C-alpha cells in the first residue's frame, strides 16, 4: 500500500519542527556589531598579554632577556617558565615534566 501524500503544510506539522528552517537567535547581536568577542571585552584594570614564541623549532632556550621589555613604560610583567615554578602542577592530557 502507498503512504498517503501529505501537503507541505501537513508534513511540516507532522514533523513538529524537525527539518524546518530556523533563523538564529544570536545573529541579532552579530549583525549590529555587538558580538563581545574576547578582544572586545574591557574590564577595569585589565592588562593586555602577548605571547613571544621561539622563532625556531626544537631550540634550546639558553637565556631570556627581559630587561629591554620591562624598561618600556606600561609593561607590567614579563613571565617565563621560572614564574610558573611555584605553581602546583597543571592538569593536562599529556604529562609534561617541568
Amino acid at each position, binding site marked *: 500500500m502507498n503512504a498517503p501524500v501529505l501537503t507541505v503544510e501537513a508534513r511540516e506539522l507532522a514533523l513538529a519542527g524537525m527539518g524546518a528552517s530556523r*533563523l*538564529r537567535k*544570536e*545573529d*541579532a*547581536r*552579530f*549583525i*549590529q*556589531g*555587538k*558580538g*563581545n*568577542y574576547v*578582544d*572586545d571585552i*574591557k574590564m577595569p584594570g585589565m592588562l593586555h598579554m602577548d605571547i613571544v614564541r621561539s622563532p625556531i623549532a626544537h631550540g634550546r632556550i639558553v637565556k631570556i632577556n627581559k630587561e629591554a621589555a620591562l624598561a618600556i613604560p606600561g609593561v607590567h610583567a614579563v613571565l617565563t617558565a621560572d614564574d610558573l615554578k611555584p605553581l602546583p602542577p597543571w592538569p593536562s592530557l599529556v604529562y609534561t615534566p617541568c
Partner: protein
Amino acid sequence: MTKKLITVSVNGKKEEKAVEPRTLLIHFLREELNLTGAHIGCETSHCGVCTVDIDGQSVKSCTHLAIQCDGSEVLTVEGLANKGVLHAVQEGFYKEHGLQCGFCTPGMLMRAYRFLQENPSPSEDEIRHGMSGNLCRCTGYQNIIKAVQYAAKKLQEPVAA
C-alpha cells in the same frame, strides 16, 4: 610626537578627540570610541574584518590612520540600523544565514552596504568580485552571496510611504 586634535563624524555623531598620529583608525574606533563592531583579524590588510565606510568608500581601517580621518565621515556597523530598523544588508545576512561565528560579519556588512550603492543590481559574479576584499572562514561564502542578493532585491523595492 604629541597628540593632535581631530574632528571626525562617526555614525553621524561629531567626535573631537586628541590622537597620536600613529593611532590606526581601527584602534581609534575600538578603544577610543568603544565601537567594537569592526574587528582586527589578519594584521596584513587582507581579511577585511576591519572594513568601514569613510566618505562614501569602503576602507580597511587597520591600514588607515585616525588622523587621516580629520574632517571625514565614518560609518561603522553600529551605524547601519536606522532607529532600530535593520538595514537591508543586515536583514539579508540574518535571513540567508550569511554568518556563523559572526567575526567577519561587520566587515562584510559594511562592504556589502557600499557595494550595493556602487552596483545596485549585481550579478553573482559581480558580487563575488565586489566582496573579494572580505574573507570568511565559516560559511564558504555561498550564503553571503545570497544575503547580498536578498539585500539588493530589498533595496530595489519601493519604500513604503
